[in-house]
């Protein structure tokens, strides 16, 4: 019986110490890991959208409650003022979810750019929704009041050749992003006003 207790105690103490140590390491690296993930997964797309901004949108981000989950909002500073925000939304594509970041000018309510972050579309066909700049450019300057649709569905966006479903997915993601923006706008403006002031 005493032997059993000894074995039990040994394993328990080992596991407890290890668990404590790991939670310590985890909590001290968590913020940095989140930053790194954003930087390498969304960073390149975000930089493209926020071209010419004077800050690092990945550092200047905040979270707002939207529905059941949190939305991360990135801030872009232009001419010394926090003028633009970017947020990510997802649409259903041909091979799975397509993640799209949409940048919006909060003064004019116009889209300053969009970009695909993660996708599983067919390489060379649907993937051009991410790589082909002429597809992305079509969203630039459109108002957030627009309902984004591909031309085949009676909208204004020229789909990528041979990839209507992927293009539809991007449009629906953009729609979701602007919907979220319109809903969250009062809170976003409040955050922007208190930003660095």
């Amino acid at each position, binding site marked *: 019986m005493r032997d059993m207790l000894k*074995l039990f105690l*040994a394993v328990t103490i*080992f*596991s407890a110490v*290890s668990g404590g*140590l*790991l939670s310590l*390491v985890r909590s001290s*690296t968590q913020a940095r*890991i989140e930053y790194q993930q954003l930087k390498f997964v969304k960073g390149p797309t975000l930089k493209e959208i926020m071209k010419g901004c004077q800050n690092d949108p990945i550092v200047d981000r905040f979270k707002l409650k939207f529905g059941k989950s949190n939305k991360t909002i990135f801030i872009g500073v232009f001419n010394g003022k926090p003028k633009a925000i970017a947020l990510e939304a997802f649409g259903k594509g041909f091979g799975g979810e397509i993640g799209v970041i949409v940048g919006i000018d909060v003064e004019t309510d116009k889209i300053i750019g969009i970009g695909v972050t993660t996708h599983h579309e067919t390489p060379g066909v649907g993937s051009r929704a991410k790589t082909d700049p002429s597809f992305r450019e079509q969203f630039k300057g459109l108002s957030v009041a627009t309902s984004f649709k591909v031309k085949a569905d009676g909208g204004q966006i020229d789909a990528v050749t041979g990839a209507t479903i992927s293009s539809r997915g991007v449009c629906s993601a953009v729609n979701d992003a602007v919907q979220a923006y319109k809903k969250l706008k009062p809170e976003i403006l409040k955050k922007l006003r208190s930003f660095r002031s």
Partner: protein
Amino acid sequence: MAKGVIHEFVKGLWEEVPPFRLVLGLCPTLAVTKTVENAIGMGVAVIFVLTCSNVIISFLRNLIPKQVRIACFIVVIATFVTIVELVMQAFTYPLYLKLGIFIPLIVVNCILLGRAEAFASKNGVLLSLADGLGIGIGYTLALSALASFREILGYGTFYHISVFGPSFKPFSFMVKAPGAFVCLGLMLCIMNMLKKK
């Protein structure tokens, strides 16, 4: 004593170099040796985990009950592997993405449990430290040697620097799985020939 320490350190570099002489830990050996950068990243992770787990296990060797020693060893090893994984995610995220599943798989790597069982649980802290460092560095050198062959022939580069210039047609066979086996076999053969003499 000092002689013993040096002996334990040096044996890992040639006599008992893990992938070639002991033929242990082959799964990551074959998988991560596409480029020298990956091989060194993997090697450094193994050096850290092996040295730390060897020291801790040899320090606690008289407190660990015989019947549950394997469970305790695995807890120690898994703790250090998780620390490496978190730190890598926080500081070298692109490398973490490339090595992927092979970092968590260090837990079940035979080299680590092998050293814990065969060496650290029977020897003093200083000797175990030397053993861990020696075997770890030997493993790194072995991976780097294998990766150099494969990267130079398979991509025509060494540590991402072009070796042969643009006219070189890479042997893409070398960076695929069969190329890894062939390359490992040839290196084992050369080492055995050298040993015979």
